[in-house]
């Protein structure tokens, strides 16, 4: 059975059909790319899968459990975490705290323990810090842990966002344009990092990206959206040669 199963997902905003009958089936440890021109509905897919939007119709399952109608924080605790296209870090919190916040849902303790400073408070806080340390180490951000997130350079903010998403212990990770604004070298490093965390954390990854070198380089399967509809899917090689995809990106050839 597929890990994430999306069935006939649609979303309309007023008269605009942002997404029509979107189908997706992600196997465990798959790395799938979602591409398409601007306004094709890619981010809408993410917003639907994370509960930010309620779908007009259709449903989706994670490990056979229906997640339709759950709130975003409940979906996160079921195992889907994401990053955002326009970075949404907690700017005035330190890098370290940004990661620790995402630990909250599975390693919290009662408010009374915090207020009375009971031993369990220290125990859980230490555990949360420990995990944050490990993640920051992996993402090479440990020496910046006390800096405010908003003061990091752009590339590091992107990395921190992925670290934070991982801290939420996802089974499925949704990356919304992780390489946006990165130079080719940073993109290359990011590709290695994504492949590495997939192995290390047993992750299933769905990513939106405009950087074709990244998408073609690491995705095993690519889904192409245009005007809210899937126009093609297959391996990177198939997608490269697909005339509909070329048409959507570059415009149809004049006949």
């Amino acid at each position, binding site marked *: 059975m597929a890990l994430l199963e999306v069935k006939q997902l649609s979303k309309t905003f007023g008269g605009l059909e942002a997404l029509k009958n979107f189908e997706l089936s992600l196997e465990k440890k798959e790395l799938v790319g979602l591409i398409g021109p601007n306004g094709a509905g890619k981010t809408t897919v993410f917003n639907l899968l*994370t509960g*930010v939007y309620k779908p007009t119709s259709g449903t989706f399952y994670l490990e056979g459990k229906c997640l339709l109608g759950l*709130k*975003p*924080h409940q979906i*996160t*605790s079921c195992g889907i*975490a*994401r990053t*955002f296209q326009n970075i*949404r*870090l*907690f*700017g*005035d*919190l330190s890098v370290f*705290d940004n990661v*620790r*916040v*995402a*630990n*909250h*849902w*599975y*390693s*919290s*303790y009662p*408010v009374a323990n*915090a*207020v*009375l*400073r009971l031993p369990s*408070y220290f125990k*859980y*806080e230490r555990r*949360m810090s420990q995990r944050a340390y490990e993640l920051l180490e992996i993402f090479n951000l440990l020496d910046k842990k006390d800096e405010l997130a908003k003061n990091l350079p752009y590339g590091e903010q992107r990395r921190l966002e992925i670290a*934070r*998403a991982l*801290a*939420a212990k996802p089974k499925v990770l949704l990356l919304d344009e992780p390489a946006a604004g990165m130079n080719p070298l940073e993109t290359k490093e990011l590709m290695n990092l994504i492949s590495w965390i997939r192995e290390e954390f047993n992750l299933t990854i769905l990513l939106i990206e405009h950087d074709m070198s990244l998408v073609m380089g690491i995705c095993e399967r690519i889904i192409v959206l245009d005007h809210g509809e899937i126009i093609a899917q297959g391996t990177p090689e198939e997608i490269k040669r697909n005339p509909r995809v070329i048409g959507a990106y570059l415009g149809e050839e004049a006949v």
Partner: protein
Amino acid sequence: MDKQRLWLNVGVAATLAVVYFAVDWLIKTGIITPFQQLNLYLIGINIILAVSLNLIVGFTGQLALGHAGFMAVGAYISAVLTTKIGIPFLPATLAGALAAALMGIIIGLPTLRLRGDYLAIATLGFGEIVRGILINIEYVGGAAGLIGIKQYCTWPWLFFWTLITVLFIKNFINSTHGRACIAIREDEIAAEAMGINTTKYKVLAFSIGAFFAGIAGAIYAHYFFLIQPNTFSILKSFDALLLVVFGGLGSLTGSIIAAVFVTLITALLQDLAQLRMVIYAVLLIIIMIFRPQGLLGTKEVTFEVLCKKMGGTTWHCSK
């Protein structure tokens, strides 16, 4: 590290004990005049109000203007319990505060869906509704107010409740729950996406803030003998908000310093009568021009920071 922290805590506790006994002695020997004592109580009440409102506005980022309403609930419930029913001060205070917290939950659930100015208007309305209801209840004296409240609140109570408020909120903020609240302030959508139940935390922060506003109300009622609905008008809410903004949104020590400073300024300018408000306003404008983030911004004055500022690299100062 833990040992150093222990010593630091012992040091802080010792300092607080010295302050407590010193003021206690000064009151008993009559060195502190009644006017000074009154201002001492106002400082305590203002600290409680500012710190509790800072949790809602400064840390959780929800602009609420109904703090006086919660204070009124705490004041009236506790005063009715002590004067009309004859319940001791402590349980009456707690009952008043719990009623305010409950009110916080009831008000918070529908209104915290709103953001920014809409939440401000809704909570402002709440404060006015409380006042309006109190004016129309004959049982608590209507517009004339509730009189004959016994002056149960003494220095030990004031000190105790101020300390509890600051400690409670400080410990809350420096925990995963506090970080969840700050994350909501920073970016609600991202906080939700990271698994934080934003509704729960907004209502929690709101009701904790309301609880301590209720405590402040109970202290107020049992020190000033008399409570009137108009005492808890919208101006009182603004006073509290002013302290928070003045000290820095998201800084507990900032709120405390602002509460002390503003209360003392008000007391010192007492003789100038009408001119007082002008000076007060000019002072505020100057601060907002030169330090729009408030006195401390989001920073805290801690013993560790103080040690570093003094240039001390002594072992017990290192974190």
